[in-house]
């Protein structure tokens, strides 16, 4: 088709998938490797790299999925990840995924890839959406303008996959080249002479440096000496002095103009009046007035599905029916007759038994709740509602002194705080990453906890539900406000893509839910067993009673809870949803009145989510920050609980 250098892809060479946010990189990755990477309809789902391997003609090739980028000059941590892969890994083929209806966003990246001298092919994904919008792309012409293979695909329907696999076996070096004008070009030449050999071309690195890319500094320091770095800096300054506007901005403009020209030559757009219901719904969901009823409907449906169906109907079925009616009595009976030793019998079926406590809590109480929540959350993710929710609550975050961008990780925290803490990488400043991490750890209940809490509250009263939600929201707001005043630094600009509202694909919801349940079973359940074992051991060696007595001034007097609640808080240190499940069991046994339910739930909600979350916090924010956050959270949680108890008592409020 073209006259450019092509060579066959050799065995074992890495294939990297890159592209703008939310164009379907992870879907393509899943199709090529058979491995599931979380797929959603909002930008920033992938914040770390995922690896897999792809089988082509009997040979296996490593494939890497990367976080979405709008430019290869990174501005936030997730973007650094992608650029660094291109810079440091030995890459043999880059697969750039583009949104067919949005070529003007993707092609500037294509130009940057071409400048890097990497072989790549272009995948025009969401081909159907482009067609339905009247956008016709002349693939052949575009291919010859860029000098590489171009594969149209509809990834979610697996269309174009075979063509893509065929194209992967060949390496193709694109031909497109841009002239940035004499001043910048001379700067490029001067810097090129100083730069070391690397995986990507000197020209591309020189352009990044001219554009003022700070994130390259540490890479440069490893490879060249200090005087050379200073020389590069002075070349950059000289070039910048010749322009009033930042060089990076000028470079972006030149690239964008070139892309517009390519698009004008290869794309025909017919105006099609589109009137799909999803468009209207999408607009209503972020409308200043209609957005509120839409939000309420979403919340009510969520409550009905998770709080009623999951937490009450299914949970009861499993807990009272399966575990209470069959498993526990049967196993207890079996244990009574076969295990003579009471120690080992209690280990499995005692008060703190692995089966009667750990598995009953995790499988019977929490699993149906997280299961239904994962389904509901998956639908919300894939529909594209979450970014619209971010728009609706942006003002609240702004009044806290945070960018509305912080909304996304916070909403994702409702699914899993651990993953959401990783997503904090999309924030551009350290200050905001710390605040988001703090708020996630402090008060955003994850799916498991939210489900248990909803299940518990569903049985009590609407007022308590509202009070709990109101108190937690207020605390998040106040702590956020205070933190943003105390922690100095900048605020990220609030600007992000709004994906179109889409009807979720059933198969993706199923796969996503299953993979999350799988994660829950593998990661959370063992932790439940560990927690139970700790309680069991403490109980057996008689320390548990002592702890309950020692904690009694705090738990009984200060919080006004029964002594048994101490157990729930103890295991709450491991996972707060487990602690919540302990409270749920207490409340089911009729040991908690509505006042106590409110106090205990607020306290446990404010705990650090789980051990996994703690580890991610250390990894992402460093141990110093994490220790500070944890040292704040636990005392704070108890103080808030105590204050609520005090207020309820002093006013004689009976909920």
């Amino acid at each position, binding site marked *: 088709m073209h006259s450019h250098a092509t060579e066959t892809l050799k065995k074992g060479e890495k294939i990297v998938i890159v592209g703008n946010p939310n164009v379907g990189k992870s879907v393509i990755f899943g199709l090529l490797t058979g491995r599931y990477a979380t797929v959603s309809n909002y930008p920033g789902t992938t914040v770390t790299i995922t690896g897999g391997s792809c089988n082509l003609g009997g040979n296996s090739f490593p494939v890497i999925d990367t976080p979405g980028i709008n*430019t290869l000059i990174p*501005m936030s941590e997730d973007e650094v990840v992608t650029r660094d892969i291109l810079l440091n890994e030995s890459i043999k083929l880059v697969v750039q995924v583009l949104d067919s209806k949005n070529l003007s966003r993707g092609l500037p990246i294509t130009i940057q890839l071409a400048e890097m001298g990497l072989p790549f092919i272009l995948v025009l994904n969401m081909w159907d959406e482009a067609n339905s919008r009247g956008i016709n792309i002349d693939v052949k012409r575009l291919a010859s303008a860029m000098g590489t293979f171009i594969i149209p695909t509809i990834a979610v329907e697996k269309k174009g996959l075979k063509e893509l696999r065929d194209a992967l076996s060949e390496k193709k070096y694109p031909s497109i080249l841009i002239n940035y004008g004499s001043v910048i070009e001379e700067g490029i030449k001067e810097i090129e002479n100083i730069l070391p050999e690397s995986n990507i071309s000197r020209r591309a690195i020189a352009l990044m440096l001219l554009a003022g890319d700070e994130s390259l500094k540490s890479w440069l320091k490893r490879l060249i000496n200090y005087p050379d770095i200073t020389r590069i800096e002075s070349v950059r300054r000289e070039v910048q002095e010749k322009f009033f506007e*930042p060089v990076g*901005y000028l470079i972006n403009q030149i690239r964008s*103009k070139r892309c517009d020209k390519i698009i004008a030559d290869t794309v025909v757009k017919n105006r099609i009046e589109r009137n799909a219901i999803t468009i209207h719904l999408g607009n209503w969901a972020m409308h200043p007035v209609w957005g509120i009823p839409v939000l309420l409907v979403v919340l009510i449906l969520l409550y009905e599905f998770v709080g009623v169906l999951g937490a009450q109907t299914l949970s009861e079925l499993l807990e009272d029916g399966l575990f209470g009616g069959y498993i526990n009595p049967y196993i207890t009976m079996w244990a009574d007759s076969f295990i003579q030793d009471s120690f080992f019998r209690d280990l499995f079926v005692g008060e703190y038994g692995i089966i009667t406590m750990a598995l009953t809590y995790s499988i019977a109480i929490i699993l149906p709740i997280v299961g239904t929540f994962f389904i509901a959350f998956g639908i919300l993710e894939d529909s594209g509602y979450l970014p619209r929710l971010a728009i*609706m609550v942006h003002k609240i975050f702004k009044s806290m002194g945070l960018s509305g961008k912080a909304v996304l990780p916070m909403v994702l925290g409702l699914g899993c705080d651990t993953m959401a803490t990783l997503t904090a990488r999309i924030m551009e400043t350290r200050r905001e990453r710390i605040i988001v991490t703090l708020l996630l750890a402090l008060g955003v209940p994850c799916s498991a906890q939210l489900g248990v809490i909803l299940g518990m509250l569903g049985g009590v009263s609407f007022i308590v539900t509202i009070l709990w939600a109101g108190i937690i929201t207020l605390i998040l707001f106040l702590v956020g406000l205070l933190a943003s005043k105390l922690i100095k630094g900048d605020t990220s*600009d609030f*600007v992000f*893509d709004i994906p*179109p509202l889409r009807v979720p694909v059933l198969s993706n919801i199923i796969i996503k839910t299953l993979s999350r349940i799988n994660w829950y079973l593998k990661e959370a359940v063992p932790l439940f067993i560990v927690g139970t074992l700790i309680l069991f051991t403490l109980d057996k060696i008689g320390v548990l009673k002592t702890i309950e007595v020692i904690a009694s001034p705090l738990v009984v007097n200060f919080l006004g809870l029964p002594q048994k609640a101490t157990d729930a808080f103890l295991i709450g240190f491991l996972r707060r949803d487990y602690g919540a499940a302990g409270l749920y069991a207490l409340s089911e046994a009729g040991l908690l009145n509505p006042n106590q339910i409110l106090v205990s739930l607020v306290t446990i909600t404010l705990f650090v989510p789980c051990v996994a979350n703690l580890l991610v916090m250390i990894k992402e924010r460093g141990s110093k920050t994490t220790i500070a956050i944890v040292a704040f959270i636990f005392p704070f949680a108890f103080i808030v609980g105590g204050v609520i108890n005090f207020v309820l008592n002093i006013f004689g409020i009976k909920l």
Partner: protein
Amino acid sequence: MDYHRSKEEIFEEDRIEEMLELLWMAIEEGGATIDKITKRSEDPQAAYLLKDMESAGLISLNSGRITFRETGEKRAGEIIRRHRIAERLLSEVFEVEEKEIEEHACELEHSHVLGQSVVNSICTFLGHPPTCPHGRPIPKGDCCRKFSLEVKPLVGSLTDLQVGEEVKIVFISTKYHARLDRLSSLGIIPGNIIKLHQKQPTYVIRIGETELALDSDLAKDIFVKKTS
């Protein structure tokens, strides 16, 4: 403006103004030396002209380097301002081809052509642009400092628009470099057409098939002109 001056006087005036303009640009690029200026100038008597200007108190010559004195700098700034405002006017309002803009702007830059108050009106009309179409800064006038809105501006901030309007981005006026980089990587670049979808709770704009949410702080930095 003085209509009673002779042709020769106006010619002399123009020569000085051309030289002041050249000096301003050279200084903007890092510095003016007599060597550089005499080489660049189209004036055959450039070296003598510089001497004359020194004795007129417009500039100082110091071991080959040229610097402005106060009056010279003020006059040069006015010339540059006229030139660059004229460029904006020609490119934004009349959509003159880029090749021709320079030629016309050079004629309009002289004080006997465009008076101070006319320049200020045009500047206001254009929304007090910070740069010329080539990205070089326009020296501020009295009108920019007052940010007067007596003339209804043609170019205004995105925040001044009504929902549903379709506009062309003319320039982005921000003091944060990172913000420019961020916006341009999302397709918010002069020349692109955008449609304002909503202003509350955040701004939502449409560029091509992309919908972008942005905060009012950013929206007010984006200057646009209505498309006809």
